[in-house]
């Protein structure tokens, strides 16, 4: 799988409240959530984001609440992946479970500027900053998480497990 898009860059501790404020948590449709995505730090985000764009953040991306609405909103906007220095634990699981790729790569974050074109090759495990002509290895995932991703997310994984029971 390849993901290519422009980098939309933010700072450290991008929390779930700014990704999708609490007032909108009565919504469950990703398209509706998308209209308010990143409202807390960048109200123009839903307008400027294009399908495949890659959100770049600093440390502790997705900290805060367990609301799956946060990765749902990003995915609903068409965000192709999130690259950050580190991710909060719950957000990380949520994104994997709904099939939003997350890449932990501090070096790439430091060397990426807003608007740079990035390309991620999930199969080769490579992240490229095409604008800057730089290439980075993506850390490989634990086998059990690869299993979930290879089946297309947790829904299929659970169906598969139930079939075996």
């Amino acid at each position, binding site marked *: 799988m390849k993901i290519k898009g422009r980098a939309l860059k933010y700072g450290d*501790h991008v*929390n779930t*409240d*700014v990704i999708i*404020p*609490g*007032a909108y*948590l*009565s*919504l*469950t449709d990703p398209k509706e959530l998308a209209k308010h995505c990143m*409202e*807390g*730090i960048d109200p123009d985000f839903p307008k400027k984001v294009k399908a495949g764009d890659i959100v770049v953040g600093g*440390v*502790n991306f997705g*900290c*805060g*609440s*367990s*609301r*799956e*609405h946060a*990765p*749902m909103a990003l995915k609903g906007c068409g965000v192709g992946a999130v690259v950050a220095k*580190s991710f*909060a*634990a*719950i957000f990380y*699981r*949520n994104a994997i*479970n*709904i099939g939003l790729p997350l890449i932990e790569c501090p070096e790439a974050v430091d060397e990426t500027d807003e608007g740079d074109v990035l390309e991620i090759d999930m199969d080769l495990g490579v992240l490229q900053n095409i604008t800057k002509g730089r290439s980075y290895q993506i850390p490989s995932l*634990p*086998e*059990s*998480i690869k299993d979930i991703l290879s089946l297309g*997310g*947790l*829904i299929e*994984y*659970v*169906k598969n*497990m*139930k079939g075996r029971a």
Partner: protein
Amino acid sequence: MGRTVTEKILAAHCKQGNFKPGDIIDVDVDLLLMNDITGPVAVEVFNKMGDGDVFDKNKIVVVLDHFTPNKDVTSAKLSKTMRDFVAEKGICHFYDAGYGIEHVVLPEDGLVKPGDLVIGGDSHTVTHGALGVFSTGMGSTDVAGIMALGKTWLKVPEQMKVLLVGAPGKWVSGKDVILYVISMIGTDGALGKSLEFDGVGAKYMDMDSRFTICNMAVECGAVNGMFAFDEVTKKFVDALGLRDYKEYKSDADAIYKKIIDVDLSELEPMVAMPHLPSNGRPVTEVGDIKIDQVFIGSCTNGRIKDLRIAAEIVKGKKVHPSVRGLIAPGSRKVFAQALKEGLIETFTDSGFTILPPGCGPCFGGHLGILAKGERCVSTTNRNFVGRMGDKESEVYLANPAVAATSAVAGRLVHPAEVM
């Protein structure tokens, strides 16, 4: 090699015996929790996983506490989705609107036992670590997976310990301990780790303070917070008549990645300034900050002791004319107890508004929403941009004593200033 309480509980719930931090293990879940925000998404996902029964209808708890009593038609639909699902699947533990906040209700009703492994569709599920429980929050898809299978995967966390020494002063409680710790290590200071609280000072932390401390362990990135079983826990669980619980303690040779010392006798009431829980400083050092609203409540500080402290301070005094004072007891039981003790009358006489038990104000869901430029002193857990309303409003996190005092003073002050 020795193990910590967290490692012992994980070992008791998985087949892989010889794990180390960083390993992925499959664990059996004793109790699964969800609410009216995470629940409906989990139900949708659960149905996509194939129709069928939940893994154990006795081990699932549904609490409608976030948008309840429902604020609008959309949120009413969410509650109804959960009500229908509970009826259809025969889920035994259901708390409809008004019972209270999940993390207040569960311990109160004895649904969480020391030694349990608890997963909740809510990040503040870490609260239950106060009872010597492994508990952590997950999102809706994980919750749906557990509903189907009764198990989930976990990455074994590295262990971190906070050693409490000394005795706290009059106005210092659990909230100040955790705000101080987060101010030291930052909002990612315990990222992906287990955060255990121990030491000779732990005995000064009663159960309510322990719930507050573990509740905010997630605000420094911890997977779980933990107090080992001791006399304080025993008194609490015995009063509830709990049986068949496990009394785990960490081994003397257990391995901790990091140990932090906190001298309780040196702590002052803390305030976390906008817009991160890690922006903590002693209330005496915040300067002159005028406020518009005070909120006392939430899964962090909505328990009976929190209300007692607040009532002691405001008794016979009035909420400042430029401040809206809001109090939401954490549960119906807390409300009833407060009523019995005359606290509700005290609050009402002082000019506070009593809100129904629930999460609404804390996450900017409904009730007590802030306008642009407004400031709120809140006993809750997060002060992120826009947390309680407009993105240009400000939230100052504090303990109930500071919140109550500030409501009277109209600005952020130390409790000693009005007492």
